[in-house]
């Protein structure tokens, strides 16, 4: 008889279902209304994109705490550029160069200077925001330029419209499309390319990967470049969806939400485990949770409290599934 294996992914997925059913019963129409469900996914599409980037880095046994700063600052830099209103593609290209610089710097510091990822990215967050705040923008709200249909579509368009009769229509918003596209690209990258296998190898056992000839340092640098670019893409979608960028998002606890998605989804923090599917599952649960709390009108502070307690619980489960003890812990692995 085949034993049914309990995976974290499965647990989280069922949890999300139970929570959704519970909310649907408790809140009725408010929750399971098709448009609310679409809103639900749309609101977490950006979080999900960030989670995809974070997932790649965590699979490679790293972490990128600078993602939010990168997202906020890079998009803000694009928006304050004089080209933003005259030639948005050029401005976006400049932003891309900026973001590549951030990712390269983090990656080089981590891979070649051998500074622990967690500290590098923590400090990089401060540095990136400090640079943006002191040299590029001073105001909190930056408005997105008008008059670019594709930019507008990215935020508010619908990639799929199904008429439901009685005047309503089911619309699949573009941010969700962007999320799905990114997920697909990263899925292929991780699953079907040599680079992807290297990421898993280096994350699972860096020393063994290095001995067998994997260019671990380059793979590390590439991971942080990818996470920075993903943060940038998420930022563009965010700017398109909310007509601009609020730089105060940097001060929020969004990075914990991203971690929540990845860790809840079941990507082990010790690297080499999990994949894009885990991020999707994690996003689903967090989405249901956030949506439920918003509908229930839970104050922001309490939402933070609940989310962080859940994250703590997820960490406990992670440590139970991937146990570490005195014999297996890597020295200096905080």
């Amino acid at each position: 008889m085949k034993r049914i294996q309990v995976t974290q992914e499965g647990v989280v997925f069922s949890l999300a279902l139970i929570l959704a059913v519970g909310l649907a019963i408790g809140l009725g129409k408010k929750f399971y209304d098709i448009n609310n469900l679409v809103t639900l996914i749309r609101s977490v599409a950006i979080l999900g994109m960030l989670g995809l980037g974070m997932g790649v880095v965590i699979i490679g046994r790293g972490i990128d705490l600078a993602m939010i700063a990168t997202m906020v600052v890079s998009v803000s830099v694009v928006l304050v550029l004089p080209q933003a209103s005259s030639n948005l593609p050029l401005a976006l290209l400049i932003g891309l160069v900026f973001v590549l610089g951030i990712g390269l710097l983090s990656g080089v510091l981590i891979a070649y200077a051998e500074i622990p990822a967690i500290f590098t990215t923590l400090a990089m967050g401060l540095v990136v925001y400090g640079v943006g705040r002191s040299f590029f923008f001073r105001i909190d709200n930056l408005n997105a330029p008008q008059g670019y249909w594709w930019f507008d579509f990215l935020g508010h368009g619908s990639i799929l419209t199904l008429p439901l009769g009685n005047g309503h229509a089911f619309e699949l918003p573009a941010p969700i499309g962007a999320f799905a596209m990114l997920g697909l690209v990263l899925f292929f990258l991780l699953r079907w390319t040599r680079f992807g296998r290297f990421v898993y190898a280096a994350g699972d056992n860096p020393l063994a990967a290095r001995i067998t000839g994997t260019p671990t340092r380059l793979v590390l640098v590439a991971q942080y470049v990818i996470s920075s670019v993903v943060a940038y893409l998420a930022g563009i979608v965010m700017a398109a969806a909310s007509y601009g960028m609020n730089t105060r998002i940097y001060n929020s606890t969004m990075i914990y939400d991203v971690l929540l998605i990845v860790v809840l989804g079941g990507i082990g923090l010790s690297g080499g485990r999990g994949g894009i599917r885990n991020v999707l599952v994690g996003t689903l649960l967090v989405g249901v949770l956030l949506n439920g709390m918003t509908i229930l009108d839970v104050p922001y502070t309490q939402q933070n409290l609940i989310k962080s307690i859940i994250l703590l619980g997820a960490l406990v489960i992670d440590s139970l599934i991937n146990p570490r003890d005195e014999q297996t812990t890597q020295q200096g692995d905080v």
Partner: protein
Amino acid sequence: MAWSKAFVRFRYHYLPDHVIGELLAKRWMDNLIPFASLVLVIAIFYPFVPDLFAAGQLSNLGRQFAEFGLVTLGLAIVMLSGGIDLSVGSVFAVSVLVGLICVNVWELPIWQAFIAVIAVGAGCGLINGFAIGYLRLRAFLTTLVTLVIFRSLYEFVIIDYSTAIVANMVDSDLWDFLGVGAVAGVPFSLIITLTIAFIWHIVLSRMRPGWRLQAVGGARRSAYNAGINVRRTVCGAYVWSGLLTALAGFLFAARLGSTGSDTGVGLEIQALTAVVLGGISLGGGRGSVAKAAMGSIFVLILTNSLITLGIGGAVSSLILGVVLIVAVYVDVRWLKNRHKLLNKVYVSPTYAGLGPAMDTSANSASPFAVNDKLRNVEIIGCGLIEGPEDVILDREGNLYCGNRHGDIIRFSGPDFADPEVIAHVGGHPLGLAFDPTGNLLVCIGGMGLYQVSPDRVVSKLTDETNRSLFSVIDDSRLRLADDLDVAPDGRVFFSEATIRYEMHDWAVDALESRGNGRIICYDPRTGRTRTEIRGLVFPNGICMASDGQSFFFAESWACRVSRYWFDGPKKGQVERVLENLPGYPDNINRASDGCYWVALLGMRSPALDVALRRPGFRRRMARRVAQDNWIFPNINTGCVAKFSEQGEILESLWDLGGENHPMITSMREHKGYLYLGGIYNNRIGRYRIPGADPNWCSLDDRGSPT
């Protein structure tokens, strides 16, 4: 040529380049980088910030340091245990809030408020500690999450109390004194912090809990396998962090009397920067209170100066982030390369020119002319012992020797058939001697001077001596006690071959050929140990002279034997007895005819002799060539020589083919026979001395005062 030679001698005599390596080996050298950066930041900001060290500023800085220093200390403790605590900022905010609610709103007595604050802080620490220590979560993420949890709780509570806190200002002298009081101009809170820091310094550097903490941080697996309760230790570190942070919050509450939405925000980054900048390693296990203090002063001066200069929050956090990256980078590099650097510079050869060696060619008239007298010696205990450096016999004719497993072995006379381990001393026994009461005294490499009594009880006589005033290395511990002899009055004189290397690195000391060794006197009447002669080149054998006021000692790498008077009219004088020996002298013992035996453990070779005159060459060799390929003293051939008290070599005994005795480190005459030991041999040799007194026992022929 002569000039350059003189210059090389002069340079190596007066430039103590071995000190560099010894300094680098010191743990407190880690403080150099934080101290230099502290000086640097002061040098940078002093010209721009006019009243950086004005009296008022200084007192303000002192109070800030009192609070920030406690937080840093807590974080330092956690990081020493191999973890990290990012929740300090939130715990700090919560503590400030609890303190203010207790004092201002509930109007509790100060001591009750204090207990409440400490309890809350310790509770927060316990949550972290339980999760990380017992549930073994990752410290970084866990404390990142608890940071949010505690912060949310703070924001949750402050909504209800913020107005009440501001509205009710208490009138308590103690509360004010905690906040703004000073004793003799020193802020009271600073006194509290300095006291706590001092206590923690003692705990970390000199007490068992502190050592355990650092053991867990430095090598968790080893600490676990050594039986340390790792989980409890880790948990305890977080509790202490919470506790100290709470105390800091309490002092902050007393000083400012209010709290806002930004209290404690970003404190963890500041504290982290301070701790890492101070040189406390991220991996754990390395750090000190002084480092944490230096780091926090650095950060305080930096942030205060930036505020005075009117530089905004974003820029100053940018600077803090850059400083953090640079600090971690330097820490990682230092940790990774320090021992490499140390390996490169520790070995520092010096000029050691030797005179021309005495002739050893077979057909010469030299007393060292090689022969085969030892070719046919009797073999005792072949294959039963390993490494009998020294041998000795008692009056009954039993033979004693040590082995490299750390035992004292006795072969019962007269047939020496059955070896018996009479005592386990734990280290490789080198020199052996009987004291007048029949105890066997043993010099044990790496341990010191020990005694084995006739009833086989092992006891330590001494393992330390007085520390030299200007020695960088702590030379109070004995590293390589080598040979000994007992003076007629009972004093034990023993040699320590080198203070710079462990026993197995004796060959590296040969490469240095510096005067790294010394002769030490242990006086059993007072139990005191004093260093008699310093700066000897690998002092090895020691043997009392017949006048009872002096002894002969051999300096191996200097190829000479000298005589030292410890009593009588010539007290304190050293005279050369034998010089330019063809090999490296080891143990010296008395012969029945009033002369002395000396063993040559190896022979000089022309190549090494040239190398000894070229310290630069040897240093390059030590840095660039693997140790296996260094030029070593040739220890494959050795001999025993007899010399008179006047310094005349009378005869030498060789085993040229090296079949029976490839190397000889010791010999002992007893009742007409000479017993031979060698540190790398698996046997003891017995040579019949033609014409020797068949009743002579070395124990009955101690030098007596004349």
